[in-house]
């Protein structure tokens, strides 16, 4: 256990140092959620006039929850790029040789993703509040939303780590991003599920991201809904993707 912790902490320190001292790594992960929040909440606020749109906290809050969870997912994916870069530079090979407990490497990368997302989420939340966003959920409900985001962040970094450790190149970046991007955008991003029609309603109804999004929006507006299902999905996702990432690590070990 001690070896696991020491490896995890070493990877964490290095990852945080790299992320927060290199603007080309930090800035995109900060700007993307802000940009989406601005474009969606600012440009589409009139969508709240669509008959049947009844989200009590308003359109800005409706979009904030999406951007909050999206930033959690993409925070994890961005860290997958860092893992791939470490393999390309040869650092990971040396790390695999030196680490007494290699699963600590995955834990370290996951902690880095959490720290990076914490910074991003704080900034996005502050700006959303400054823009006049209404928060109707109580502190417990907001805490539950944050926990949901944390689980999503961990699930995303485990997914990306699994890819990065299998392919060991930045060229696998689209494989990390595209499935997550599609899963998130095939959920009810712009309007509630009830207002979607046709194929996208069918897809969104079975999309796991829909449950996370609906639960998050319910918590944020003080009207919790499907919270248990959302946490079950998030925890199940973390469990499955832990196996995926550890197998990826084994693949990287086998490749030498």
């Amino acid at each position, binding site marked *: 256990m001690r070896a696991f912790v020491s490896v995890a902490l070493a990877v964490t320190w290095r990852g945080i140092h790299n992320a927060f001292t290199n603007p080309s790594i930090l800035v995109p992960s900060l700007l993307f959620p802000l*940009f989406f929040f601005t474009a969606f*909440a600012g*440009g589409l*606020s009139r969508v709240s006039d*669509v008959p049947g749109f009844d989200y009590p906290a308003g359109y800005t809050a409706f979009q904030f929850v999406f951007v909050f969870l999206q930033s959690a997912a993409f925070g994890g994916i961005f860290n997958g790029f860092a893992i791939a870069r470490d393999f390309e530079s040869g650092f990971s090979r040396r790390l695999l040789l030196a680490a007494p407990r290699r699963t600590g490497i995955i834990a370290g990368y996951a902690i880095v993703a959490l720290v990076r997302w914490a910074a991003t989420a704080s900034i996005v939340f502050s700006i959303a509040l400054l823009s006049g966003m209404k928060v109707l959920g109580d502190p417990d409900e907001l805490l539950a939303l944050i926990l949901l985001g944390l689980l999503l962040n961990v699930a995303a970094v485990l997914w990306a780590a699994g890819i990065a450790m299998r392919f060991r190149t930045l060229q696998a970046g689209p494989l990390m991003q595209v499935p997550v991007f599609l899963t998130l955008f*095939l959920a009810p991003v*712009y*309007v509630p599920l009830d*207002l979607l029609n046709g194929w996208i309603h069918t897809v969104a109804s079975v999309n796991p991201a829909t449950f996370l999004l609906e639960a998050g929006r319910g918590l944020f507006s003080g009207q919790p809904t499907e919270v248990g299902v959302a946490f079950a999905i998030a925890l199940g996702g973390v469990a499955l993707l832990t196996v995926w990432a550890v197998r990826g690590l084994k693949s990287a070990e086998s490749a030498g």
Partner: protein
Amino acid sequence: MSGSPLLLQVGYLARRSVLRTLRQPMNVVPSFVFPLILLAVNVGGLQSAARIPGFPAASYLDFALAFTFLQGALFATTNAGTDLARDIQTGFLNRLALTPMRSAALLLGQLAGVIALALIQATLYLTVGLIAGVRPETGVAGVFLIVFLGLLIALAFGAIGAFLALRTGSGEAIQALFPLFFVFLFLSSMNLPRNLIEIEWFRTVATINPVSYLIEGIRSLIITGWDVQALLLGFGLAAGIAVVALTAASVALEGRLARS
């Protein structure tokens, strides 16, 4: 090549540019697929926006189709820029500077690949739109004009990509600028008409943003009919951006050739 007319020089480089563009599926395929994916997602998610009082189209698909052309042109920017930057990094441009090749030929030839790609994109987007039920208000003539405006926009954006490549000489720098261009696209009237954008500062930004008028030029041909003002603004701005970017790229090219 000595004494060759400009057109012959352009032809050689255009052939190279077109072949190089079409031989890179990793560059070409996303420029076809991503705009259509985003179109599908946006239309699915925002179909109910067509029920907002004052919305100018009966179907959100009719309204949104124009945006795919702009997104395709954005890929043209990065493709043109990245290819030219690669020519700089590999020394191709330096070797070319030793020949009697005129700089205008180099630039126009380079952009031929962008135009070829944009033509395929425009045909694909329109075909998908027509299959999905879009019926442009301006008929067959309007379809040709949509393609023409799409090509002009791709030329303008491609020239910006070429200028940036000549200034930076780095493909990585061009790729890094992609998100910045994306911001321009999103802070426009891509999702809702400007008069329906409720947040004042956003409406102001969308009004200042030339991208709004490029989208509205194409969109007017699909949902409005022959809207002279929208067309003049669309074509005028696209041509203006193309002229400014080509001029800037020419100056940057002269400077780079003088240094090499």
